[in-house]
């Protein structure tokens, strides 16, 4: 077996530094909320649909409460209050607000317990549905057997959910274990979630609840036929993180891309907004038993995979720590790593072996999300196919959890049907060819691989310790992450963050904290 010998002191220091960094945010998590969190609450209460213009009702209602300065109590109270006063369903309340026939803040607030009496049944109903979905997933895995490891993860990205379905079904039959519907470009910048089934998108397909439902139904069908549970995933990151997480929980997605800092660093979304949203979004994922995935790969698409290898490790440790705060268990943390080393570099594979083993060793229980070569993929499909083969070889050799298959056309277009099929063929061949190879091998004493892994860990620890001193927000403001400056009070969506009144109430967060046992640490 290829066992790294990591300096255990470094390992401990890395975890301590990460905890200092993430532990410093209870002031934010405990005292603030955001428009996206409130929209999530409304969706959980059963409000859905959109105006002709496309504006979703949860946005209409929350914007209404913002305009009326009522939002700081949380949206739940106002809507419940209106339901009580008018004897309407949550949806009907939203419709009236949309129609302009109802101003929530004009209705005098009923007694707390009367309001709770309206909210609690809704809460229980929704949480039951979500636990039901979780149970269904677990049963399916029991029935058909667990997911293979590394799991074969492929993307569909036609922009048209119906084409996506055809391609996802084909991929699943060929052996894909996880289908990712890539999102239309920059959806993370939209401060609302589009409504309904969509057939147009750039670089991907919009993440909408209807699209989730359509794809999940198609995959359930194939799962039955192939006697293999096919998992579905999408992206939560962005200005609607908790809303999309909620939709995923409701429609039984199985994994969710949900990075703590991606939106800040790569989409210039306000830091506080992002951290606050990810806190609730991940709590929802934790509750729904959804495996989160993080976006460390993004660091390497812009920076050098060798020089900046430590930024990946550092980000993994921060993501892990934030995930724990939201109640996610290690076996549901798909921390990201990517094979982005320049193929022209001598010993590119040897370097990557060190990096891949480091991730695996540092997070032994995490179903690591292993990303393929993308930056150095070129229009030469034959060469790219070989780079993907090395990546697949590595995934099996180092037992990564989820293999995000590379496509030979990575540098050309979003995958064609055949590209995806060849990628699966590539992975299946490699996985089989080196299935138990690692059992025959071990690392040579004082090997380059072992030295390199410790070197990267060392750099990550030193970096995290300075960040811990500065505080994460200052560090990001200084541009210490991904070489981009992200000041605390700039970036998109800051105006959507607000401080909560003492009588603010988020029934779902409360209930989830209960069940996830997250009271203790507050």
């Amino acid at each position, binding site marked *: 077996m290829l066992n790294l010998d990591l300096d255990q002191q470094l390992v401990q220091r890395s975890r301590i530094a990460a905890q200092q960094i993430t532990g410093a945010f209870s002031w934010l998590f405990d005292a603030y909320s955001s428009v996206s969190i409130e929209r999530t609450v409304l969706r959980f209460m059963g409000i859905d649909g959109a105006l002709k213009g496309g504006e979703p009702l949860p946005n209409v209602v929350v914007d209404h409460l913002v305009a009326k300065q009522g939002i700081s109590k949380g949206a739940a109270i106002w809507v419940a209050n209106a339901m009580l006063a008018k004897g309407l369903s949550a949806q009907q309340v939203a419709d009236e607000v949309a129609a302009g026939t109802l101003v929530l803040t004009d209705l005098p607030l009923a007694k707390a317990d009367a309001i709770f009496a309206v909210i609690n049944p809704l809460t229980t109903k929704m949480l039951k549905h979500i636990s039901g979905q979780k149970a269904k997933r677990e049963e399916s895995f029991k029935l058909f057997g667990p997911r293979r490891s590394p799991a074969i993860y492929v993307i569909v990205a036609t922009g*048209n959910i119906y084409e996506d379905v055809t391609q996802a079904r084909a991929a699943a039959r060929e052996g894909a274990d996880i289908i990712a519907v890539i999102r239309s470009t920059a959806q993370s910048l939209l401060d609302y979630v589009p409504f309904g089934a969509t057939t147009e998108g750039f670089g991907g397909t919009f993440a909408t609840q209807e699209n989730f439902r359509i794809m999940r139904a198609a995959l359930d069908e194939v799962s039955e036929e192939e006697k293999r549970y096919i998992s579905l995933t999408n992206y939560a990151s962005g200005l609607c993180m908790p809303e999309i997480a909620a939709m995923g929980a409701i429609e039984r997605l199985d994994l969710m891309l949900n990075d703590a800092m991606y939106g800040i660093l790569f989409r210039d979304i306000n830091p506080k907004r992002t951290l606050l949203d990810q806190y609730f979004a991940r709590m929802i994922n934790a509750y729904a038993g959804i495996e989160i995935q993080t976006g460390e790969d993004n660091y390497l698409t812009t920076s050098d995979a060798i020089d900046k290898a430590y930024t990946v490790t550092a980000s993994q440790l921060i993501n892990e720590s934030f995930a724990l705060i939201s109640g996610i268990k290690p076996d549901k943390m798909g921390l990201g790593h990517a094979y982005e080393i320049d193929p022209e570099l001598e010993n590119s594979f040897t370097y990557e072996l060190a990096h891949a083993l480091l991730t695996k060793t540092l997070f032994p229980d995490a179903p690591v999300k292993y990303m393929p070569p993308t930056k150095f993929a070129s*229009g030469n*499909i034959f060469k790219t196919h070989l780079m993907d083969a090395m990546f697949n070889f590595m995934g099996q050799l180092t037992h990564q959890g989820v293999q995000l298959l590379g496509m030979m056309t990575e540098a*050309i277009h979003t995958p064609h049907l*055949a590209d995806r099929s060849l990628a699966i063929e590539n992975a299946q061949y490699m996985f089989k060819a080196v299935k138990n190879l690692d059992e025959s091998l071990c690392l040579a004493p004082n090997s380059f691989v072992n030295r390199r892994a410790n070197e990267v860990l060392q750099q990550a620890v030193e970096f995290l310790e300075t960040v811990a001193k500065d505080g994460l927000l200052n560090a990001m403001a200084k541009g210490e992450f991904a070489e981009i400056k992200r000041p605390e009070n700039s970036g998109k969506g800051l105006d959507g963050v607000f401080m909560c009144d003492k009588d603010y109430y988020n029934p779902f967060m409360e209930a989830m904290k209960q069940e996830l046992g997250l009271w203790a640490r507050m």
Partner: protein
Amino acid sequence: MGKNVIRPYGDTLNDGKMQLSFSLPVSADALGKEAARLLLLQMGYDAAEITGMRDLREGFTHFIAYAVTSCGIDKSKIKVKVVETEVMDMEATDAYIQQHLGRKLTVVGACIESDAHTVGIDAIMNMKGYNHRYGLERYHGFNAINMGAQVPSEELLAKARAENADAILVSQVVTQKNIHIQNLTKLIELAEAEGLRHKMLFICGGPRISHELAIELGYDAGFGTGSYATDVASFIAITMAKKG
């Protein structure tokens, strides 16, 4: 576009996307790239994108491209000749021969002329067979004679006549400069000349052989990549039985 008309599929039905790669005697620069693009347009592609360009030296360049075709074909109009006899396993075939013919069938096989690729014909004829399917030698219903590699057509026919074979099995693997066509034609013409053609079944096979092609060349059947003794045995047995 008629509803039966189909086109290549990239990621949208009938988008006509195709992948190509080819070399041209041009330099690896903007001019060469443009030459490659123009060639594709001249060939009738609606759009062509050269995604890769590799200098092969000595004045050649390799191009990798994705192009869009507007050609489509009518699925309903495609006719293809395929061996239609059902495929039985060894036991069934032996039983069938026993019942319908009541005698052993003699087949003489060879890799003819310059071709020495016997693995294919051996896969069909030898005891051990191929992919867990026994070869003809193991059948009770067959008397299988495998003459092996590089057998001149004349010798094969002489042997077949001597053994008065029910079927001749020919393998052709090398196809460079269409030598397999030449060899197979030579054999059939000799057989005609010697009046053997209609005394026995003529069956050929090889990675580039299709039933279609075999028929064209005047054979009774042709078997390509991935065929097994079961396919051939069934075909011979059933066809002989029909002939009575």
